[in-house]
């Protein structure tokens, strides 16, 4: 076949014809997979050179079909051609914001928002660490997040390219980032939720964005015994309307408010637009108010939460609520300093209604016109289309089927429903096309995307996706003006798709071409290498403008000139008490000052200003073995703060990231030994060991255990190695041959109860020498015997080595 192809269509200029021929030959190439290990994919075991290859040779060698060739051409993006979109993803439990380009599907960036990321230095400067710390909840250090749904700020119902917000399900927080530099700028903690999921959904003018609770809990964060009665009484959900300043890119906490919801386990939301402006829609999946308890014989959550045939769509009127709050008609209940509209008040003022929705829904999506709302319920094979004017009509005419347990009016399904369409098993999420009435719904169990018409209520086509498809995204698909063209299927499984990389698989994002009139087609499978995106937005490159260089002296979190800005020539060091401030500069790769000198125990602030103003002026400043570093962006001023806890000479390394030169040795940080500070260091180390003992002791692997002497494990676990060595004194006396100097009884007493010997003169002499007292580590009798055995064995071993 190869020869034939070459003879007939060898010329590259015949490629178009060639492809047509191939597509005629190929019966169904939509989803012809080269799955499994049996496919060598052109893998050339010998590694010999392929030699010069024509187009036909490559097609033949790599087993490509017409669809593959077209897909390659639709996605391959050489350096002289621009990509069209950036996909901005939530990172899931990776915590941050993975981004890639479309259509070339190249990983572009991971924007850090809550996790320390040394590549950018996020969390290594005072400025960025302070931002992370604002996300600590009740003092709890939290260095990760489970980010779920990214929302892009809008003006007139379309992305304005200014801000993005993303929520954290694990620790209900919101992170605001600026598209100018793709940098996190603000972190706000939910004052009332213990869990969220449905966020962040902007209103068309970005006046508010919505964040709904997920797993209900008491809003005041108080403890209550769990019982069916208490669950109904104290557990609550809600939807928060966060007031957003679209010019400054800031959440205004004081002007935000929450609708109290029953504990129905709310899920995703969407804000109304155009006709439905002023309203918000939130769905729920456990209106049973069930909680599990499999360990005590109760059926699990998954059984009890899906036992009813319908759940409730929560419909809220934020526009009216804002007005009534402002004019004092509604007195909000203040919960942990936050305004909450009580269910009774919301009902009284017609701000809150329920409508039955398909069983265990996931996505609720308002269409580009704002007239229709589509809900997909994963345990119902239909997607349901609600019509906004029908909902309004029911409300205006007060046609309700009754009230729920909390007194909330329930609108009859028939009164609100435009219709439903059977889209497949396990429908989850919806995205809109640029063409009127066209919607795409991800179908979980069937592993496919259904293209259908939500106005005329009919299925138009399918595209098979890979397994566990979750969210979908189309270009600007959640705005008033979707672009069509591209659709991405976010598949959570990637079995059988990529080179295997162990039990933890990447996700699989499939780029789907929806530009034609026919069925959509998958044109690229992208492994998402870290994190588990739940939602993505596709922003076209001309919809935002970013800058690669900051004005000199910028604090990148506040975007203001840093008070630590240092002009060239104005470098200085100031000492006040235990604090040392170094004001330095980086200019065209030259750093001032180079050498640093401190006393052990001083708190050091290194304020550096990067005067570089080209996009290559990125510099990594590191202090070896001190775990201190920062990556300075062009124009940035940042502060590296640390306690000079260890004495010694520490090389300072400096790396111009954009040149291939090796890390230069900038100079040394000399930390002069200080006895008291060193004591503090040792005590801190002992504290750590004690904490580890409480939490989890040192547990070696089999191979490590095989190399440990009897009793060494206990010696390590009680932290003895923090102060003692064999053959030399350390923070405490040398233990070499200690068993010859003291008998076993004395050693045991000393190890188990050091206080008993505190008055002995020889002990006092040692305490004077080492400035430390042997701490009581609460060693058991049994462990003390083991440690003594180790002292002997180790001494013997050292002795042997000496000989």
């Amino acid at each position, binding site marked *: 076949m190869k020869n034939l192809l070459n003879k007939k269509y060898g010329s590259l200029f015949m490629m*178009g014809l060639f492809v047509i021929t191939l*597509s*005629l030959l190929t019966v169904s190439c939509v989803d012809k997979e*080269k799955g499994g*290990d049996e496919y060598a994919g052109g893998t050339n075991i010998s590694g*010999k*050179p392929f030699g*010069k290859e024509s187009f036909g040779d490559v097609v033949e060698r790599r087993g490509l079909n*017409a669809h593959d*060739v077209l*897909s*390659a051409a639709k996605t391959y993006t050489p*350096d002289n*051609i*621009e990509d069209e979109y950036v996909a901005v993803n939530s*990172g*899931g439990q*990776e915590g941050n914001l993975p981004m890639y380009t479309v259509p070339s599907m190249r*990983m*572009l*960036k*991971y924007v850090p928002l809550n996790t320390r990321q040394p590549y950018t230095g996020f969390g290594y400067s005072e400025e960025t660490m302070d931002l992370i710390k604002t996300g600590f909840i*009740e003092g*709890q250090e939290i*260095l990760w997040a489970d980010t779920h749904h990214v929302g892009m700020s809008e003006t007139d119902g379309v992305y304005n390219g200014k801000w993005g917000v993303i929520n954290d399900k694990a*620790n209900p927080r919101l992170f605001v980032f600026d598209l100018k530099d793709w940098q996190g700028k603000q972190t706000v903690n939910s004052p009332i939720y*213990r869990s969220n999921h449905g966020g962040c959904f902007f209103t068309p003018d970005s006046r508010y964005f919505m964040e709904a609770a*997920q*797993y209900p809990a008491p809003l005041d964060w108080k403890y209550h015994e*769990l019982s069916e*009665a208490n669950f109904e009484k104290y557990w609550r959900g809600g939807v928060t309307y966060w007031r957003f300043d679209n010019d400054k890119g800031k959440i205004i906490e004081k002007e935000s408010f929450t609708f109290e919801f029953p504990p129905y386990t709310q899920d995703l939301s969407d804000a109304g637009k155009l006709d439905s402006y002023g309203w918000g829609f939130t769905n729920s999946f456990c209106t049973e108010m069930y909680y599990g308890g499999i360990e005590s014989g109760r*059926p699990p959550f*998954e*059984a009890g939460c899906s036992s009813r045939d319908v759940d409730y769509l929560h419909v809220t009127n934020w526009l009216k609520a804002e007005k009534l709050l402002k004019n004092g008609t509604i007195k909000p209940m203040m919960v942990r300093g936050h305004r909450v509209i009580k269910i009774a008040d919301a009902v009284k003022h017609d701000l809150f209604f329920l409508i039955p929705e398909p069983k265990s829904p996931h996505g609720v999506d308002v269409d580009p016109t704002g007239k229709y709302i589509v809900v997909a319920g994963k345990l119902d094979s239909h997607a349901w289309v609600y019509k906004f004017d029908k909902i309004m009509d029911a409300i205006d005419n007060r046609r309700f089927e009754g009230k729920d347990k909390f007194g909330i009016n329930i609108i009859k399904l028939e009164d609100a429903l435009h219709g439903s369409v059977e889209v497949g098993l396990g429908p989850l999420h919806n995205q809109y096309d640029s063409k009127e009435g066209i919607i795409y719904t991800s179908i979980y*169990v069937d*592993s496919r995307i259904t293209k259908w018409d939500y106005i005329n209520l009919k299925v138009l*086509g399918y595209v098979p996706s890979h397994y566990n498809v979750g969210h979908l995204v189309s270009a600007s698909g959640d705005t008033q003006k979707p672009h069509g063209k591209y659709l991405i299927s976010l598949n959570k499984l990637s079995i*059988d798709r990529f*080179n295997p*990389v162990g*039990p*933890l698989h*990447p996700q699989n994002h499939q780029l789907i071409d929806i530009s034609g009139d026919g069925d959509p087609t998958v044109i690229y*499978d992208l492994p998402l*290498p870290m994190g588990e995106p739940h939602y993505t937005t596709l922003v076209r490159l001309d919809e935002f403008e970013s800058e690669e260089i900051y004005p000199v002296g910028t604090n990148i979190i506040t975007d203001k000139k840093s008070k630590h800005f240092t002009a060239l020539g104005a470098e200085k060091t100031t000492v006040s008490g235990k604090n040392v401030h170094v004001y330095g500069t980086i200019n065209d790769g030259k750093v001032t000052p180079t050498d640093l000198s401190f006393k052990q125990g001083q708190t050091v602030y290194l304020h550096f200003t990067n005067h570089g103003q080209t996009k290559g002026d*990125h510099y*990594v400043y590191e202090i070896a*073995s001190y775990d201190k570093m920062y990556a300075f962006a062009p124009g*940035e001023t940042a502060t590296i703060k640390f306690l000079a*806890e*260890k*004495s010694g000479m520490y090389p300072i390394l400096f*790396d111009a990231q*954009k040149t291939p030169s090796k890390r230069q040795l900038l100079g040394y940080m000399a930390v002069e*030994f200080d006895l008291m500070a060193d004591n503090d260091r040792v005590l801190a180390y002992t504290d750590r060991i004690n904490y580890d003992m409480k*939490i989890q002791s040192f*547990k070696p*692997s*089999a*191979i490590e255990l095989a190399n440990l002497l009897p009793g060494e494990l206990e010696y390590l676990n009680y932290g003895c190695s923090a102060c003692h060595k064999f053959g030399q004194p350390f923070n405490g006396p040398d233990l070499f041959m200690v068993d010859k100097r003291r008998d076993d009884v004395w050693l045991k007493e000393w190890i188990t109860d050091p206080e008993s010997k505190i008055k002995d003169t020889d002990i006092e002499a040692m305490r004077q020498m080492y400035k430390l007292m042997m701490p009581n580590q609460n060693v058991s009798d049994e462990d003390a015997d083991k440690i003594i055995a180790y002292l002997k064995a180790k001494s013997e071993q050292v002795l042997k080595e000496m000989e």
Partner: protein
Amino acid sequence: MKKSNWFIRAFVGIMLVAIGATDAMAQQTLDDVKEARGLNDNDVLSAIKTFMPRGGRDEYFSIVGTGNSGTMIVYGIPSMRIYKYVGVFTPEPWQGYGFDDESSLMLKKSSLDNRISTYGDMRFPAFSEKDGNYDGHFAFFSDGANSRIALMGLDDFETKQVLSNPLYISTYPGVAVTQNTEYIIQSSQYPAPWDNKTTSEMKSGVTFWKFVEGEDIHKSRMIKEKSFTLELPPYALDFFDAGKSSSDGLLVGLADKDGKSYVYVIDYNKLAKAPSKKVNDFNVVSFDEAKKNNAVGFIEIPATGKMLRVSPNGKSFLVPAGNNVIVFDFAKVKSALAKGDVIALADVQKSSIAIGKDVIDVAFDQRKNTAYASAHGDSKIVRFNYESGKTENEIKLSFKPSFLMVPQGNSASPHSNYLTVVNKEALYDNYPNVGPIRPSFQHLIDISSDDMSDIYTMSLPQANVYGSVAVLRTTIKPIIRYPLGTNTRTGEISRYKTVAGQEKIEREGNRVHIFGTLIRSHITPEIVTVNEGDVVTFHLTNLERAEDETHGFTVDTYGVHGSFEPGKTASVTFTANRPGVFPYYCTEFCSALHLEMEGILLIRPTGYVDIEQKDVVLTEEQQLEYKKLYEEKLVVIDETGAIIGSVVDFLKENNFGDYPYVAALVTDAFDQLDQAKSSQENHEKYAKEGKYKQAFLWAEQYWQYQVKTADVGLRAKKLLEEKINK
């Protein structure tokens, strides 16, 4: 639409809609796309050389040193798609790395300070070797920031060991592996005292970490006690490489001191036998002792060496320095070393080949005596013969090239179709501008013929890219699940392994251990109550056997996270110091009901006495309603069972066992159905007792298992149909 079985109606629906949809793309020609996107013929050729058809496998696995990111990247060649980031020196929450107890403990062991170092700087990784070839078992990294060394298992792509170098303050961020992985070699970079004093002598060194294979491969580790360091005068040390074949036993590397540049050579087998002393509890061989044993020598070279690479046959090594590549004769170096520690360049140099301005790196391929050199200043890569000293051809690039890599090029058997080139400057006009922080870039060069061509530009986010190594994909044999209850950091069965039905909560004072399990779609236990101030550990085992069925776990607002791949046992510990109600849940999208995979941790305030809670008593009417619901559910269960039966028949008739991926899905489907048995016992028992609410809920749970069975079964059916049709 009430009360009908959505599942059955939809299933029939699927049967009616055949997959034979027309291909929209058939109507579109390649010429249309070329014109629309402005592609030329070369672009299309590059596109089809790199595009990976759905489900295709890349030819090579490549791992990258990510610089100060401290995280490993693994990607495929030629598609250049990144498959995974793996935490090595830097915590990474997706994998629970540094957020669960097992990995935190491993990192803790590498710290001699009162905290764990939070990042590393790793630039030049290496693979484990057997007879000079990559065996696909392990990869190694050196931490140039916090002086550590790490071992990565390639069966599961997890970090297995991190050790602290007890001597160095500044460490070179690269490693070398000897030809049978006897030693993993790490050197200092910039000199520093070894005793935390500002006044002591500056020292440098080269450390030979002894690698010991365990009785089972998962237990292989570097053993500190069997390792040693050669102490050197204060040289600034740079790249090094280990000899192979005839030069096995020698290490060569780059050193600078007092404005002069050297190549050092070390005979480490002699050092291993030489007397050593303990410094910081580590074996150290003194410089004098090494010289006495003719185990160390220095060759002064005319310009600073940028890189040093040993040829595949071990007979030569190449050092780019200035505008040339110096070729050394390894046999001559070896014999010179036997005579003394000062070696004249003229005695050991084979040739010095002029390449171009500022040569950064060299790489070897399979063609005889062929190497590639990057001339940074001339924006070109030169292919040359290092025996004849002749340059063969070159490719002009649109950027300044730096580090090079040919798959297997650092082993005894290099391949020869691809060359990757790092572009540090990254001055692309057309690449999306997303702010000051930009990715790193490297290009894929097609070297399969005489004409080399640049066929792909790859961006690598969160990576300061330097060196990389690549191996044929079939050499690495990753696993898809662990033996049940594995602590993946040690390779042993965890003492906290918990099997279904054995879940329990143990309390000892304020220490609470929860032994739990994870399976689609519930966490056992689901409700846990502890007291304020308790130190709480969840030890969880993922009972799944199915590929890619990972579960995650976190307790809201308590800062911990674990990733539990099939079979894995891991733990998270926190102090319950804030009373209240805290949901916990599975963080992975593991099934359609993943949101329902949740639980509640109740933390009782100090001094609080629980008020006894009574269950809500159902009215007669409610009881009857539940009875009706129960009976309806039984009908649905029967109907769903019939569907499962039909899928099973189809699978059996078509010999699903012949297709491993299909068979794995079928196994999983039956596993799900097995799970259902206890739910059936429960609903029948409660129905008999007249407790219809419980009966209904357990019937619902039975049905949930059926849905999972059907879910996986349908996937198996779909895949089987594809395989048959192929």
